[in-house]
């Protein structure tokens, strides 16, 4: 059998109805285009996420937070309602008891705190290499007449020197203990140091940090300053008198202290501290291409002052006074990424709040896969519609060419050959649509990448420079092959119909 001759015959058939066959091909094109774009985006986003996060030991890290603990006797299956009653009533009361036990659990507060003792305990867990508290605290900051309440500070891992590459003026702190601080360029900007020269000018000067008033270990956010008008607007519904409003205004400023007191003030003997720190450098916001580290960059996105963790820890202890030093967050490093999940689970079993990058990544990956699969199915509908279009076109073509098929048969075409010619015709439509879809998708990815990168830049604080749409070889092959296969499937029935044409009827003179 001469394939080239058959392809020629099929091509001739296609070219005879260019308009119709082009439209049919566009159906395949749309399906393949959409499918390629969606899978490519799914692949790309996954690469963005893993690429951003998987380097630099991130996969060995687990974020550890205080937990609510677990009360063994409050497990739902162990709640028993006793007494003589109907099963229906017992079931109702049991449900009520479960609901209330859950309320008690959440209301019991942060029963598992991150203290030095509890961290020491956790360090003994298998596969745990180290646990390092992360010190994020708010202080009041005063500098050259500028004042800010509640500026976020962050204790950097001095030895890792991770943010050093972001120091745009001055230098990295000289030691883990030195009273030296790096100021974020944004804080300086809000203070009016607009140009880089102005920002660099603060290096060598001294700023003062002091503990937020009334802040014990809870270190709550200070209340925002509010004008009487603001307060009036806020409390309009309550119809407060002038005197009451004034009282609210006064009280709101001291709310942190009052809250601390209400929570059992005498246990939490916070000490007000005040410290002069020398500005040794200006730190810039991360840029695309910076090494991303969850420890430093993931936790410090809102921090304006950075100092070595040795200093941060010292300040924390001073502020705690005779009370326990309590951390808000710690970073667990496991010996190998493969153990991250198990250790995370162990921490949760103990009642702490913990999440590992690996688990988050896995969850992200699976949800991204689900989304991609669902979207692919939706686009698959476009391909199914295209298939129906092909079936329609091919049947029309067979009907139109019944006499021609009769001639083929009279001159010796076998049924198989007749089928093959129509299958080739359809395959060519599918291949053409698939190649077009792939080509246009590849072109659309260029602006698509730019748009997607802009979106990432707008929505997150981490810039990204790589490709968001990626088109691996297997995906390049998938589009045209899928288009062709679908078209061949669509042509099976019309081709069979063509092969069953009765030459006597087809050739009858009329």
């Amino acid at each position, binding site marked *: *059998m*001469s394939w*080239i*001759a*058959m392809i*020629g*015959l099929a091509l*001739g*058939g296609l*070219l*005879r109805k260019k308009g119709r066959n082009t439209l049919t091909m566009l159906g395949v094109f749309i399906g393949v285009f959409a499918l390629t774009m969606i899978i490519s985006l799914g692949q790309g986003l996954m690469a963005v996420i893993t690429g951003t996060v998987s380097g630099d030991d991130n996969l060995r890290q687990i974020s550890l937070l205080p937990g609510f603990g677990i009360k063994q006797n409050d497990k739902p299956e162990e709640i028993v309602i006793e007494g003589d009653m109907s099963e229906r009533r017992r079931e109702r009361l049991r449900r009520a008891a479960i609901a209330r036990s859950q309320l008690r659990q959440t209301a019991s507060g942060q029963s598992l705190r991150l203290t030095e003792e509890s961290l020491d305990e956790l360090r003994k867990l298998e596969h745990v290499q180290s646990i390092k508290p992360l010190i994020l605290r708010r202080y009041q900051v005063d500098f050259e007449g500028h004042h800010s309440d509640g500026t976020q500070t962050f204790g950097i891992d001095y030895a890792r020197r991770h943010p050093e590459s972001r120091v745009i003026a001055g230098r990295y702190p000289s030691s883990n203990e030195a009273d030296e601080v790096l100021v974020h360029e944004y804080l300086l900007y809000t203070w009016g140091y607009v140009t880089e020269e102005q920002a660099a000018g603060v290096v060598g000067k001294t700023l003062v940090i002091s503990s937020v008033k009334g802040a014990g270990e809870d270190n709550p956010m200070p209340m925002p300053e509010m004008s009487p008008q603001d307060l009036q607007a806020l409390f309009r519904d309550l119809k407060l008198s002038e005197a009451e409003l004034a009282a609210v205004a006064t009280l709101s400023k001291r709310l942190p202290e009052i809250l601390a007191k209400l929570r059992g003030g005498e246990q939490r003997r916070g000490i007000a501290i005040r410290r002069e720190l020398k500005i040794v450098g200006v730190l810039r916001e991360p840029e695309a291409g910076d090494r991303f580290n969850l420890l430093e960059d993931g936790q410090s996105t809102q921090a304006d002052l950075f100092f070595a963790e040795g200093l941060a820890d010292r300040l924390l202890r001073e502020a705690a006074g005779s009370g326990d030093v309590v951390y808000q967050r710690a970073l667990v490093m496991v010996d190998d990424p493969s153990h991250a999940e198990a250790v995370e689970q162990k921490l949760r079993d103990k009642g702490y709040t913990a999440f590992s990058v690996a688990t988050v990544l896995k969850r992200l990956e699976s949800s991204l896969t689900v989304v991609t699969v669902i979207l692919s199915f939706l686009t698959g509908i476009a391909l199914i519609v295209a298939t129906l279009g092909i079936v329609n076109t091919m049947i029309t073509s067979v009907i139109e060419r019944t*006499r*021609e098929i*009769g*001639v*083929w*048969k*009279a*001159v*010796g*075409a*076998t*049924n*198989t*050959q007749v089928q093959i010619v129509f299958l080739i015709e359809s395959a060519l439509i599918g291949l053409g649509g698939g190649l077009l879809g792939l080509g246009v998708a590849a072109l659309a990815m260029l602006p698509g990448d730019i748009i997607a990168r802009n979106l990432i830049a707008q929505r997150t604080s981490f810039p990204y420079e790589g490709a968001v749409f990626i088109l691996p070889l297997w995906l390049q092959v998938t589009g045209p092959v899928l288009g062709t296969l679908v078209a061949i499937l669509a042509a099976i029935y019309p081709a069979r119909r063509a092969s069953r044409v009765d*030459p*006597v009827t087809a*050739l009858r*003179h*009329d």
Partner: protein
Amino acid sequence: MIVQITDVWRQYRMGGAEPVAALRGATLAIEAGEFTCLLGKSGSGKSTLMNLIGGLDRPTKGSIEVDGIELSRMSARELSLYRREKIGFVFQSFNLVGSMRAWENVSLPLVFAGVPRAERKRRADEMLERVGLARRADHRPTQLSGGEQQRVAFARALISHPRILLGDEPTGNLDSATSEQIMALMVEENRRGTTIVMVTHDPDLAERYASRIVRMADGAVVGDTRREKLFATEATEKGTEAASQRG
């Protein structure tokens, strides 16, 4: 004996009721090299008989042997190959493929035989030369006159050098002058040794060219006359002249 038809019946089911019989026990033997005209009114079964000889159709019962091979036992594929190798068809309505050039139409049988394009072209040109249309090779059917179209169809029928040429009213759509040309080509082919079976309802045409006239009525052979070849020879010369004057 190249064709041996024995008690052949062909019935069609139309709408499921009583089957309609196009052939009712037709029996006929055709010698190799004969020029046979099947003569009869429409509905006499002559076309059905011709389609059976050409392997386009199968008998309901009875036997058709061509070259000693029983057609009714062949598979669809074997019948296709049989048509490809042994049979050439010429139809009343030419049945050329409108989108193909003359030479492509002529070479169509070779496409299914798997002959490479260059050879197809060469052989098609050869055939077109023979029917006097060498200069029309690249024309499409719509650009050709009826007589030219039928000559293209004739070239297509002969390109595989069939043993039997079947004509179903090949001159039915042509005026008398063009008909003469086509008949001349038929006679010429017959002289080369090709067995010709031609269906016609025109007794005059049969009288003038056929070496044998088989009359059919109601699906059976009712008359069979062998004739001298003299007339045909004479006619051939006249027809060839006519053809060369035109071509």
